[in-house]
């Protein structure tokens, strides 16, 4: 028990440190005064000012302590109810965020990466098994070269970071298994090797799997599944008639986890999927769209989404079970308290019925 408490405290402390570190990294500078007659400029200024004040406020240690422990408590509460298996993020809005703060694009992507780390640690605390994130689309190769290079180098950097943390017993991301999925042939060999190394490093993790979709599109994923199935039919003697939805789904990038995505979150206001997780989400998946830009996506919003999910999940589980609690309890009581059973009766044992008479033949 004592050991347990210590371990738990250790864990909480590690998380706290982690969050502190993230906040330090993210700390925005004081914004420049706006052009007072332009509405958007004033709005941007206020947003930046809010971020700045909030970060100063959080640096007070007791405020930080309170905020952190409230978050931890709330997540622990949600944890005892139904929890989504697979949560997925479309991280949209990094560039607009940077633009609104008058910063270079790079800092927007940086902030986005930190938000993802924050979300990861929350999912991990909650007990979500699979998290996936849309880091880079194949279509994104159409962007200017500098930005593509920037995103690639950022990914490499963050991968190392996550890999390090996944192995660090003190970190809250300990035990995360990392996978980079997508059209890997489109990225340089050097980066591929680096990714493979990190993947191998974290192979032993079993508490959560993180899929980073890097150059990924869903159509490409389906195409690969078709190709692989045809290949295995041709060379490995699989009968074409045996191909069904289940085996096909298994041959996709996410393997056994390809069938369903419980909760897909898309930030920054667009209501489309942009070629992401089409197969996973088109049947009974929940898609949440929000207007917040990804770096601004915080604890409260995510928590409300999770609470909403768990409310409806409870309701549906109950509806699908289709037995009312009352009748269940009633039968339980009846069977246990009044063990009275009717004896089976055979037809022959019944006494003879009175003679049958007809009215017509009375005369």
């Amino acid at each position, binding site marked *: 028990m004592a050991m347990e408490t210590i371990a738990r405290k250790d864990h909480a402390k590690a998380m706290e440190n982690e969050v502190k570190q993230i906040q330090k990294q993210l700390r925005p500078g004081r914004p420049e005064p706006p052009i007072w007659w332009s509405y958007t400029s004033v709005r941007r200024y206020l947003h930046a000012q809010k971020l700045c004040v909030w970060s100063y406020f959080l640096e007070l240690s007791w405020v930080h302590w309170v905020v952190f422990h409230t978050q931890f408590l709330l997540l622990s509460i949600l944890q005892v109810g139904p929890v989504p298996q697979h949560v997925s993020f479309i991280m949209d809005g990094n560039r607009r965020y940077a633009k609104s703060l008058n910063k270079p694009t790079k800092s927007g992507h940086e902030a986005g990466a930190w938000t993802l780390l924050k979300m990861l640690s929350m999912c991990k605390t909650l007990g979500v098994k699979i998290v996936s994130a849309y880091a880079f689309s194949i279509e994104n190769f159409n962007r200017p070269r500098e930005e593509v290079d920037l995103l690639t180098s950022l990914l490499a950097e963050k991968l190392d970071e996550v890999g390090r943390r996944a192995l660090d017993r003190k970190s809250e991301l300990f035990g995360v298994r990392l996978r980079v999925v997508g059209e890997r042939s489109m990225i340089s060999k050097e980066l591929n090797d680096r990714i493979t190394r990190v993947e191998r490093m974290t192979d032993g993790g079993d508490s959560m799997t993180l899929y980073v979709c890097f150059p990924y599109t869903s159509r490409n994923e389906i195409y690969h599944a078709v*190709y692989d199935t045809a290949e295995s039919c041709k060379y490995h003697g699989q009968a074409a008639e045996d191909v069904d939805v289940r085996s096909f789904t298994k041959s996709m990038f996410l393997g056994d986890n390809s069938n369903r995505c419980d909760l897909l979150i898309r930030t920054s206001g667009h209501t489309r999927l942009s070629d992401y997780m089409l197969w996973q989400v088109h049947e009974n998946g929940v898609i949440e769209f929000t207007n917040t830009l990804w770096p601004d996506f915080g604890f409260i919003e995510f928590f409300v989404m999770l609470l909403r999910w768990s*409310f409806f999940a409870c309701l549906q589980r109950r509806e699908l079970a289709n037995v009312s609690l009352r009748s269940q309890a009633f039968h339980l009581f009846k069977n246990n308290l009044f063990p009275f059973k009717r004896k089976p009766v055979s037809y022959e044992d019944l006494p003879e019925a009175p003679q049958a008479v007809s009215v017509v033949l009375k005369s």
Partner: protein
Amino acid sequence: MSKIQDTVLKRQDDNWRENEQDHKRVPAITNGFKNPGKPSVGNVKKVLETAVLVPPNSEEVRRKLAQRNKTGMWGQSGGRLEYAMYKTLLSVLLVIYACVRYAQYEYNRVKILVLNLAYSPSNTPQLIRQDVLKLQKLPRRLAAILEKKREGDVGGGVSGVLNDGSELVAWSVSAGIKHLILYDHDGHLKRNVDDFRNNVSHKLSKFYDPSNVPRFAVRVPQWNKVYFNTPGAEVGAAKKVAIEISLLSNRDGRETIIDLTRTMAELCAQNEMKLSDITMKLIDSELTQLVGHEPDLLLYFGPSLDLQGFPPWHIRLTEFYWEQDNDQVTYSVFIRGLKKFASCKMNVGK
């Protein structure tokens, strides 16, 4: 590659009868059989029952509970107490959420009522065209997901679906949209295609001059068939149609992709096709032939977005529109969807 198409179509034909029974569909959790978005007292009770009584599915909590059971009397009751406390707090949170949700629901309903008053075209195509003329762009292909409501309800049953579908057709014709895709999970529309055609023609004759009803074509990709106008009035098929309607069902989704895979795998195994011939372009063109083009805008008339197995290949960049807590096929959702589409910016990857 017409051979691939023929084989896939044959496969689809083979088992469409077995498909005739309604598949038991599990809807998305936010969109159940009885509208779960409206938290009635009964619903809240059900939620709490499950939340409190069902064991958690997070492994960590289970492990902790099991561990505590081993460590003697004191540890056991402590762990249990903590667990019970969390469960209680969870119920409190859920009740609070239900209250907030109820307020939201009422607000949304009022909003929908007002909108329905504001936009009511009452069978006049001129009004619809006027609404549309204000917009900058229209979707080339419009898709809509229809749902069969319970038999007893107003607008329920198969006739309700047919009516909703034909209403959408009439609005689209008036708005000037040339392609309409109607999806319903169980394929009620395509199974009753003759009734549907009659219904559409009836509805169009209410909107337009009955002696000169706009021509339409109904395409059922699953059977590779095209029907013109009403049954018995197919003459003039060669003339230009005002709208082309595709009827899709769940069969055109995952299963068609599987059929395509099987066919390609067979052809590859028999060396009639090379593996390297399988490209993204080929799959795309085959699926376009077998199912249709990707829609630009997808309208959903239920309380919260539920794609219900709409063909996954075809929703790549599709814009979704639905009105929160709405449960009817109404013109206000249609026109607001078009407005949303006109205002949104598409930048593929850039």
